[in-house]
């Protein structure tokens, strides 16, 4: 079955309203939809909802031989699947659809190549036995921005997952303990990379946060930025045809950093709550509980809020610049289909203009903001890099 053709009316309406700073679902250009996270009974199983977009993630692990190139590391494999459940035109099986492959690849770069999972701790006996992690992501409902939703689901599932403990006996033998014998061991995560997607409109001048399925289809390009809570950029991807300015990318990455910080906080708070409940011996009823409370929002125009994440307040940036750590990698900004591969770039802002910053997100997203950005931003990156080190926005 083919996807329903996009009507000219919808296309021009979305384009026109974006120019006026309006969106079809009444959000601001920089507003995200409500985020919800629900953990299942098993470790590492989670439903993530972003507006009406719903994703189910499950982490599983198994023992196997390591790769010969990295004999003392476990592996992590990510599999995103979008079937007819996500949207009627999608199909399962081979060949995989382009959008599915793309999400898979970006997630792999975000989670694997940023080395956020401590793979060395997954090694049992070097060159013989390591844990293989597998993250299965099933897209349940595709209402746009599956990218962010799957990324949050994957990170939350990894943070929630626990593997069985293993004791090595020295002579190449080992014992896998059942949960009854020894507590399960969590996976070590160095940092939580979060994807933040912007759809670009008006010749790459207007970024729109958290696009819906309709906005995704109308937009010229989509910019995915994966940032962790330390404001380190883990992956960047620009797909589509749009001439984007570096200024815009910087601005977006700053907003993304703030968004990411809030989401990580949110994930951690929900994890803590879950942990506390489990410690008390209340095994969560799993998804049954979330249904009983009617927490799964059924329609995106329903105002059922699970745990609302406000749109980023820029106030945070000024203060967070103090605890931002310097990283020592380079940044490459190329135009179409840009890829930064596993390198981190730090995005900070100068402290003094925190007050005027508050206006920033709205500003950047209207056409007028191009002419008169009030703030001055700096990008600190590696001194040894051959690229430009500091970009001053004007």
């Amino acid at each position: 079955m083919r996807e329903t053709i996009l009507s000219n009316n919808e296309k021009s309406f979305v384009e026109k309203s974006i120019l006026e700073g309006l969106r079809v679902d009444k959000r601001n250009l920089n507003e995200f939809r409500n985020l919800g996270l629900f953990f299942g009974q098993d470790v590492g199983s989670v439903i993530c909802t972003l507006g009406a977009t719903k994703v189910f993630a499950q982490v599983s692990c198994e023992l196997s031989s390591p790769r010969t190139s990295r004999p003392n590391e476990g592996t992590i494999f990510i599999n995103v699947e979008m079937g007819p459940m996500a949207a009627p035109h999608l199909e399962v099986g081979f060949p995989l659809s382009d959008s599915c492959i793309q999400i898979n690849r970006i997630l792999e770069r975000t989670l694997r190549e940023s080395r956020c999972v401590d793979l060395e701790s997954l090694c049992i006996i070097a060159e013989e036995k390591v844990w293989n992690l597998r993250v299965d992501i099933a897209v349940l409902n595709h209402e746009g921005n599956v990218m962010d939703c799957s990324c949050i689901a994957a990170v939350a599932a990894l943070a929630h997952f626990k593997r069985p403990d293993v004791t090595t006996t020295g002579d190449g033998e080992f014992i896998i303990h059942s949960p009854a014998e020894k507590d399960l061991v969590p996976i070590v995560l160095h940092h939580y990379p979060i994807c933040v997607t912007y759809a670009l409109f008006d010749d790459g001048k207007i970024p729109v946060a958290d696009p819906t399925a309709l906005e995704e289809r109308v937009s010229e390009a989509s910019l995915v930025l994966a940032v962790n809570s330390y404001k380190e950029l883990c992956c960047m991807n620009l797909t589509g045809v749009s001439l984007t300015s570096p200024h815009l990318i910087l601005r977006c990455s700053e907003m993304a950093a703030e968004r990411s910080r809030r989401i990580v906080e949110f994930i951690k708070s929900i994890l803590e709550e879950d942990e506390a409940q489990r410690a008390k011996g209340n095994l969560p009823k799993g998804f049954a509980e979330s249904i009983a409370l009617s927490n799964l929002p059924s329609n995106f125009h329903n105002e059922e809020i699970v745990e609302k994440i406000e749109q980023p307040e820029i106030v945070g940036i000024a203060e967070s610049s103090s605890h931002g750590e310097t990283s020592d990698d380079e940044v490459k900004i190329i135009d179409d289909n840009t890829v930064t591969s596993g390198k981190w770039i730090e995005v900070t802002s100068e402290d003094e203009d925190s007050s005027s910053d508050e206006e920033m997100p709205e500003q950047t997203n209207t056409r007028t903001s191009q002419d008169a950005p009030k703030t001055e931003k700096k990008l600190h990156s590696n001194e040894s890099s051959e690229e430009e080190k500091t970009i001053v926005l004007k």
Partner: protein
Amino acid sequence: MAACVGNSCIPGETLQEERQESSDIRKVVLGDGLRCNIVASSEEHSLPVITKNGILRRRKPNIYYVDSYQKRYIPSKNDSVIGIVTTKTLDFFWVDINASEPAALSYLAFEGATKKNRPEINVGDLVFCKVVLAHPDLEPELVCVDSTGKKGNLGQLNDGIMFSCSINLVRKVLNEKCRLLHLLSKETPFELVAGINGRIWVNSNSLRKTILLRDTILKAEHTPYEEMSNIVNDFATELTGIP
């Protein structure tokens, strides 16, 4: 098991109400969700059987149907639908109407159209049309003229926004009991076209108003009839900014 009018019914139940009807009207019209002889060689085959989930309704004199939820459109004759032109061939536009296959719309099925004078409609345009042929074994056929060859309010829809919703919402909006559109029109002028195939098109003089209209209509799905004025008030408040 027998289903009663006004109650919920599930597939497999039989309609027995007709027996109690006065004998002068023998004819019973079965609407959506009721069928005869679905199970061959069943001893109960003379009784109509419910095939959908919902509430059994009856309209005078003897029309029975099941009020059920549905999102996918199944073409039926004389329905007014909103379609998107997907392809143009030699004689036809092929139009997506949210059904299992595209419907055919002849170039000649427009007011004043001739072989030479073809309507100017492009791929991706919206058309409001009527279903003239609907049969499970054939592709549905559409027209943009009424029986007198006049355009009426059929034809291409320009500007505005089209959105998908459940077929029930369209029925609800069009229902006489639902005063939503009436109340909305008192607040502000706007254009609205409801296609029974689960698509609604709205347009007004400002984008913001159109967006708010769309939102209000979608909200109506879970709003009882008597509370429609509330959501219209909310709409007015949001539109003017004055509570």
